């Protein structure tokens, strides 16, 4: 398969750091695909995107974007990509239109084509009617949308989106996810990083799970779910003061339970048959004086995959 983005044993080690931030990551993204890198904070997602954007040089390995090496042909790579950084990178005292004009010019656009394209991306992000207001008066969600619009302005072959929905309200998040879906439907390739499983599940054609700088799993959602077999994810809501090691050890000893973690008053367990193990688990909790305030049993999904592969829940991070 011809990939538009391809990383080859990518390593990034910062001077003085005990461990590499990115350690031997290899994956490929096909044209027109939405590929998500899913992992907790500090997993190496932003470092990977920074290398692909030519902002960081890899310690070893290489990456190709649209056939150009990030190590030897950075300018060609930069022409092919659009970047949506995690933090809003705009000039607040300029209007949305002025920001877009400036960034378009930095991509070599000018004149009528630029003006037309600015109107088009403003339409895409739903801010055409407020385009002449200064960005500093925008809400967080509106700023995020303009932040994304800048990355789309020059019709890049592939867009790198680094956690574009962090810290915004559900309505704006919904609008952004819908927008990414629509862009992909038009053929745009997207590399999307997130630590929200729901977003990765909703958007992605394929998902790479990254943790501790390593790509620990890669595939479609169903392929990844297959990695945990038929295991169910059980979540028990228990007072945090009762989630002590003796209770967790007792739960781990219940037949069919494969792993147990606890965080923020929620005990998460992987079990072969969730329904069958549930009654015994509640009994164990009661025996340890812990009151179960809520129970959820989920079919195999990404969180279960992450739990199985790392022994930790993604939300623990």
């Amino acid at each position, binding site marked *: 398969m011809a990939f538009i983005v391809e990383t080859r044993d990518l390593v990034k080690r910062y001077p003085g750091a005990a461990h590499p931030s990115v350690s031997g990551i290899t994956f490929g993204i096909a044209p027109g695909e939405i590929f998500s890198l899913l992992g907790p904070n500090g997993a190496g997602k932003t470092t990977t995107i920074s290398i692909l*954007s030519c*902002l960081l040089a890899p310690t070893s390995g290489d990456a190709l974007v649209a056939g150009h090496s990030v190590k030897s042909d950075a*300018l060609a790579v930069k*022409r092919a990509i659009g970047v949506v950084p995690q933090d809003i990178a*705009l000039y607040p*005292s300029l209007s949305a239109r002025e920001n877009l004009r400036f960034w378009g010019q*930095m*991509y070599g656009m000018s004149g009528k084509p630029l003006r037309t394209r600015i109107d088009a991306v403003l339409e895409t992000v739903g801010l055409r009617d407020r385009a002449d207001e200064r960005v500093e008066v925008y809400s967080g969600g509106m700023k995020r949308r303009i932040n994304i619009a800048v990355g789309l302005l020059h019709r890049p072959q592939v867009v790198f989106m680094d956690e574009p929905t962090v810290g915004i309200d559900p309505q704006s998040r919904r609008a952004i996810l819908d927008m990414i879906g629509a862009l992909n439907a038009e053929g745009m390739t997207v590399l999307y990083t997130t630590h929200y499983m729901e977003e990765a599940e909703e958007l992605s054609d394929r998902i790479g799970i990254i943790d501790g700088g390593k790509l620990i799993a890669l595939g479609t959602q169903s392929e990844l779910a297959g990695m945990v077999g038929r295991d169910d994810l059980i979540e028990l809501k228990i007072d945090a003061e009762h989630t002590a090691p003796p209770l967790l050890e007792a739960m781990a000893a219940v037949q069919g339970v494969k792993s147990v973690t606890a965080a923020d008053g929620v005990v998460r367990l992987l079990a072969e048959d969730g329904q069958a193990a549930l009654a015994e688990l509640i009994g164990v909790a009661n025996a340890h004086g812990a009151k179960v305030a809520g129970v959820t049993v989920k079919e195999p999904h990404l969180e279960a995959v992450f739990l199985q592969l790392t022994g930790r829940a993604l939300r623990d991070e």
Partner: protein
Amino acid sequence: MKKILTLTLKELLLTSRDRPALVLVIIAPLALMTVLGLAFGRGDKLSPVPVIVVNQDHSEVGRKLVEQLQRDSSELLVITESDDLAAAYKSVDDDKVAAAVVLPDLTSHAASTSGDPARIDIYCNPARAIGAGVVKTIFARTAERISNTRLGTSVTIGQLLATGRLEPRDVQAFAPGLGARVAASFGQERVTLRERSGAAAPADAQTNMLGYFAPSMAIMFLMILMMSPSRSILSERDNGTLDRLRATPTSASELMAGKMSGMMVTGLAQMAVLVAISSIVLGVRWGNPAGVALLIVLLVTSIGSMGLALSTLSKTLSNANTVGTTVLMILSVVSGNFIPRSSFPTWMQKIGYIGPNAWGIEGFAKLSHGGAARDLVPETIALLTMTAVFFILSVMGFRRILR
């Protein structure tokens, strides 16, 4: 080039949108110029500069020349004549006068066929740099006029010799008479020149405290603008726009050139506005336009480079702010932005030369006292040197940030 222009225009646009910054860099210096000028009195002249003239030309030419200087420069100079060269130099060394000027025997020079130039020696007092600058400017003009007169005398004698109407043995006897006639015409020529150059313009307007504080405040607020961390590369880094710029197909040298050019153009615009408004509204006389333009460009490039070096070599925005404010305050004090350096002890006056401010203040003093761009050679050399040093430091710092 197009991207450098885009980055430059972006800097201008951002500055124009920053109202507090506009108040700081335009309104505040104008207000301070006015307040300080009025506080010391607009008509309150700087003291005329004391100077000793050792006149070695005892002919009519020499006498008329000194008389002319005393008459024309009475607002600016207090001229004392002396025959004792050593005593004159000692007066300078003892900080009693700003300079000692040795006028050569011009009449003998005019009659001589040696071709050696007549030379006016000025022995300057470094402790009274501005006063010495005024003396240098006035005598530079005088020397120029004498050269013209001397050339005329030499040509006349040469032609008389060539046509046989004057014998070589008669030159010494003939020269004083010719010198007297030249001296007579010299006086007329002086008047003519003075009117043409505007030297007869009210000297008080050029020597009052407003005339001192206008350039002084303009330079200080130029420094505030150029060293403002809000426009620095560190600010771009912290706001995330630097990485976004680096992700565009733009080279590092284009980014740096655009950033520098943006700062320089903003600084030039600020100085142009300050000079224009202070001239029109406050009546400040800045002097020769070409000289003022040259000095502004030199100041903007040197101070801009300094600001860029400080910001790129600082680790954080907060560090840059602290270091910048400290440097600004120290340079403003030792360079005489608030109090003329002539009031300082000698050692402290010399310290002022470490930054661009003192050179700028002295340059503007020269210009406001009738000097031209060609009189700014020391200032040009000093400010260009500073620009080069700070530019190299900026490039090093910029590379560090990009890494």
